[in-house]
């Protein structure tokens, strides 16, 4: 009798291996490689074709990972700190793709800080993943701006400066989707990435992603063991299609549902004792600040707002992407030009 094994495919008929990239050149045990895996899983499970995804990145170990997932997607590995404006230009003229950006804590919280903040203010639709390990890995281990003041390098050097919490900062400048996770937490990462990809605005996911080589020692606040000891998970996340038949019963008050703009629902079942309303911006600030005071590494979805207009809507663009407009649609008629030139006669 013949044994047949069918390889599973998603709803668009692709196997998971269609989402693979090249072999990673990152250090063995690097948190960023896990981020790659979650991106692959998220896109595969979301039935998004790789040719629909634009992979954007800056410079750094983090920014190398677009090479390690979805080889059949276009990619723009740009300059240090410039992923945000590059993505803005691309998305505005070619909006009918999913933009997935990967940046590091140097790329985003130092050189790219201005770009990060203004991207969020404009609410450009992009899934913005920050691979956050508290150091500059590729240049061999200097502190980044997200390292806590208490942290210490392998050399014993102490961090003298106050850290930037990219999640609080994002909230402060109006971010409409703010989350934090840990590269090892697939259950949290995958639905977050899926929701972020469909979000009608900037979706920031601050991913603590330990640097195995330079910042995984005692004294680091971004090491695997530190995360294990301090991680407090706010919610369990799930995504439900309205077409899904399964209904899950939750006890009253345990679940918050957020309608996403692609017709799906994000279901958040609280795990922690505090009941956090992800649609309350002030509550998000509070829960973040309190967790900082208590030395917790709080992960989960802090805030989401699907009602805010994105940059694309504010620009009132044609339905057809700008890149597809032809000569005849762009060049004014002679009559129109003569009318304008009349002001100069």
């Amino acid at each position, binding site marked *: 009798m013949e044994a047949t094994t069918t390889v599973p495919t998603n709803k668009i008929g692709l196997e998971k291996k269609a989402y693979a990239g090249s072999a990673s050149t990152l250090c063995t045990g690097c948190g960023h490689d896990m981020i790659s895996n979650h991106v692959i899983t998220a896109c595969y499970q979301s039935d998004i074709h790789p040719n629909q995804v634009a992979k954007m990145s800056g410079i750094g170990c983090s920014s190398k990972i677009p090479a390690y997932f979805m080889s059949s997607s276009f*990619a*723009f590995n740009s300059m240090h700190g410039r992923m945000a404006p590059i993505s803005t230009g*691309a998305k505005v003229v070619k909006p009918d793709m999913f933009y997935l950006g990967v940046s590091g804590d140097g790329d985003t919280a130092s050189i790219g800080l201005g770009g990060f903040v203004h991207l969020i203010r404009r609410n450009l639709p992009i899934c913005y993943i920050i691979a956050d390990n508290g150091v500059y890995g590729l240049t061999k281990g200097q502190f980044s701006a997200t390292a806590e003041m208490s942290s210490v390098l392998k050399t014993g050097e102490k961090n003298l400066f106050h850290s930037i919490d990219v999640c609080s900062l994002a909230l402060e400048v109006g971010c409409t989707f703010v989350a934090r996770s840990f590269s090892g937490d697939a259950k949290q990462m995958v639905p977050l990435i899926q929701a972020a990809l469909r979000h009608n605005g900037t979706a920031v996911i601050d991913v603590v992603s330990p640097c195995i080589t330079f910042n995984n020692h005692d004294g680091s606040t971004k090491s695997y063991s530190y995360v294990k000891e301090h991680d407090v998970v706010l919610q369990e996340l799930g995504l439900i299609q309205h077409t899904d038949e399964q209904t899950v019963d939750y006890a009253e008050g345990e679940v918050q549902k957020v309608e996403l703009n692609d017709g799906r629902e994000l279901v958040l079942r609280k795990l922690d004792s505090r009941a956090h309303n992800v649609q309350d911006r002030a509550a998000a600030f509070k829960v973040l600040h309190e967790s900082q005071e208590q030395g917790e590494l709080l992960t989960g979805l802090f805030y989401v707002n699907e009602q805010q207009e994105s940059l694309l809507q504010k620009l009132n663009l044609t339905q057809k992407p700008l890149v597809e407009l032809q000569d005849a649609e762009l060049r004014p008629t002679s009559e129109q030009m003569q009318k304008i030139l009349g002001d100069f006669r």
Partner: protein
Amino acid sequence: MKVNDFVINIATVNGSGSQSANNVLLRSLFRMGVPVGGKNIFPSNIAGLPTWFWIRANPQGFVGRKPLADIVVTLNPQTFKEDLKTLASGGFYFYPSTFVIPEELKRPDITCVPVPFKQLTDESTDIGKIKKLVTNMVYVGLLAEILKIDSSILDQVLRDQLGKKASVLEVNQKAVAIGAKYARDNFAQLNFSFKAEKKDLPKDKIIIDGNSAAALGLVQGGCTFASWYPITPSTSMMEGFIKFADKLRKDESGKNKYAVVQAEDELAAFTMVLGAGWAGARAITATSGPGMSLMAEAAGYAYYAEVPSVLWNVQRVGPSTGLPTRTLQGDLMSAAQLSHGDKKHPILLPGTVQECFEFGQTCFDLAEGLQQLVIVMSDLDLGMNMWSSDSFDLTPRPYNRGKVLSAEALEKVTTFERYRDIDGDGIPYRTLPGNKHPKAPFFTRGSGHNAKAQYTENADEHFENMQRLSLKWETAKKMVPAPIVKGSGNKVGLVYYGSTEAVMEETLFELTQKGQKVDTLRIRAIPFGAQVEEFLKNHETIYVVEQNRDAQMKSLLVMEFPQFAAKLKSMVHFDGTPITADLITHKLLTSERSH
């Protein structure tokens, strides 16, 4: 009596509405068919500092800068003494009768005319807060009367410029009339020796600033994305594009067929352009020197990763913050060499408002055709002053979108490699994101890459790639606008570029009067092609005329053509004012006579 041949210097305070009044005067002369040009010398300030408006009328159309005026009108107590010094012999100086001219400044060769401006202004209006504005219209009326400017033309200009509100129009008309009447009643004995006379105006003439011309050119030329950071003197170009696109680029449902993003700084402004160019749009940023400096890193990225993009620099005086409201051609060298590493950016050098319009498309044809950053070098004089020109040629020129492979095209090829030279001209083929063909996607990176766009540290692969980029430069020589050569067979040649064009006809006229023959070549683009080389070869002495201190164009020519270095002589002007025909003529004659 000098007909259509005079220079006026109007000295006021900025923010007082004088710009509007000065434009009425300029426009009226223009519509009379008088060849005329206007220059605004304004401070880097919003209100309260001195500003001057120079109008030059000339029967032969020589409207470039002159250092002295025939008629000076001054309203500014701060500058009225220095304004007197700008008056040429035989000139007329109109000043408020409340000012006292110091004895030591009085000259026998000029006529000083005190005018009771305050009284005339009070007669024009009771409204305190518009008196300042109205005073300007009084001198418009006064000058119009003595110059014999056609009053119906002037009135029409007033209507066109200020006619939106009837009350505004009325008070301005009244002020003009009061100024004119005062002149009629008091200046009969003045022996005023300048006059404007109506000439046939060819129907298709316009008077326009270079920035507006460029903005229109961008709309005509298919620009769909602009990102920018405000900076003098490029701001008005972007604001012009926004204004014109809002009128000319809406679809049937009122949606925008363009996008403009005001970026948080120049780093973002130019990198947004790169993202848009990569995705397939005709994308531009306009800036000035300080902004261009910030764009240096990304310029190298554009060169190396071959991303079509345009940077339009309306140059002002540098270095550093410099003189934001003065003109210079001082960024040429840094533009040509913008970024670290080996790179060569094609540069366009518009010299007229017509070229500002035309290059609004040419820049993109080249950027996409070559898959490079193209830098357009305009300047404050060209960009912000008013130039009379033939109306723009609106004949559609098809957009050159360059070598872009669609999904259909990819079906027909066996392999697609992003940086492979297929045609032998150094220019590879590209695909655009969203192209669903499995061969289409590739990785764009600023790090070392091979022909397949893969990361490489391999010496041979990197060398090959850099060689191919050099080959592209050779191809570019045939694609960029050719220089304009006038004359032949003379021993002396004169090479120049950009807004120096405004004084070149006058210069040649002067030189001819003095018996000096020269051939001229106006460079309109870099790389320099065969014609530039020919010109340098065929002349014994070549003067390179430019508006910067360090002879930047001459240096670039020497770098490219070291064999002609000994023949090249610099002629520079760099005080922030536009160059004059007098300067070029004088320096050239002095130099030639000393041999």
